[in-house]
């Protein structure tokens, strides 16, 4: 096993449940590298919902909460309010975060609570067998869109930023070092950070979306269909999906601090 991972992973729970070549393990690596660089292993807790991607935290030899479908962000907010000194990282899938959990994403972003959400977007519900998710591309034939998806996919970064996220990045599993840096910056940022990772599910998305089972070929396909930019324009008409560090806003107040101020004010009144 990799020597850095030995410090972070509970060996007795290996191998990971992930299928061969699944992107979840790469996201886990990038996160471990980021935590190691910041030296905050013992001051960090990881929270997840339900889905393959939500199985990232349970292998960690750290404080983790594996919660219920769609509610990872809600649990994370509660944890942050009770332990404001902890760094909180949420691992959530495109289904967990944007479908059943969409409302929690909007409100956590709006509050600007200091947590870091890492959304692993594999364009599908992997765990349950390949149903259409909010990010499934138009025309993709999945278990729940047998004639091809007809509705527009949601752009998670666009939604998070418009709701008020003060830090936002998007990378792919083919950009592990950029992803690591973004996670590092997202954790260091005092406010709501949203990081999307475009990832390969060679099994379910491989079958329904990419018509390709080779994980490396899917990584390359996603890379080729993306473009790196640092400016986010709301009116964007190109086909290529944007990657990069889009937003870092430092003048908005953070939610836990607002609560402390409110408590003080209530005592005075």
């Amino acid at each position, binding site marked *: *096993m*990799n*020597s*850095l*991972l030995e410090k972070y*992973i509970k060996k007795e729970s*290996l*191998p*990971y449940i*992930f*299928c*061969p*070549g*699944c*992107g*979840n*393990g*790469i996201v*886990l*690596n*990038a996160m471990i*590298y980021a935590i190691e660089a910041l030296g905050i292993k013992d001051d960090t807790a990881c929270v997840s919902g339900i889905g393959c991607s939500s199985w990232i935290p349970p292998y960690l030899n750290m404080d983790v909460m594996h919660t219920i479908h769609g509610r990872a962000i809600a649990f994370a907010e509660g944890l942050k309010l009770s332990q404001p000194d902890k760094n909180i990282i949420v691992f959530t899938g495109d289904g967990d975060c944007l479908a059943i959990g969409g409302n929690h994403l909007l409100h956590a972003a709006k509050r600007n609570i200091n947590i870091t959400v890492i959304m692993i977007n594999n364009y599908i519900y992997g765990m349950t067998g390949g149903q259409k998710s909010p990010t499934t591309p138009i025309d993709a034939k999945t278990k729940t869109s047998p004639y091809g998806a007809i509705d527009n996919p949601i752009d998670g970064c666009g939604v998070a930023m418009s709701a008020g996220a003060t830090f936002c990045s998007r990378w792919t599993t083919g950009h*592990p*070092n950029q992803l*690591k840096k973004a996670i590092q910056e997202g954790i260091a940022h005092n406010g709501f950070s949203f990081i999307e990772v475009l990832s390969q599910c*060679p099994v379910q998305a491989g079958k329904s979306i990419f018509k390709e089972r*080779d*994980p*490396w070929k899917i*990584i390359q396909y996603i890379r080729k269909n993306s473009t790196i930019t640092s400016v986010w324009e709301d009116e964007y008409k190109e086909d290529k999906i944007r990657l990069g560090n889009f937003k870092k806003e430092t003048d908005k107040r953070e939610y836990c601090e607002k609560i402390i101020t409110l408590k003080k004010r209530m005592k005075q009144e």
Partner: protein
Amino acid sequence: MNISIDDNYCKGCEICINACPKDVFAISQKRNKYGTLIPCVAEKENCIACKLCEIMCPDGCINVETEV
């Protein structure tokens, strides 16, 4: 320099073979206890210690140790 692949956890996805810019890894005939064909370290001398394989291996199997 030492490069190792842990056969206990390797799932044979071949990402390392493709990700390495110097073609250090190659397909082999070796199987692990699950019957998975696992890659081998074929061209160790070519390694530039960029460690891309370490971060790209989804199962955390690879160790690139450079002499200090």
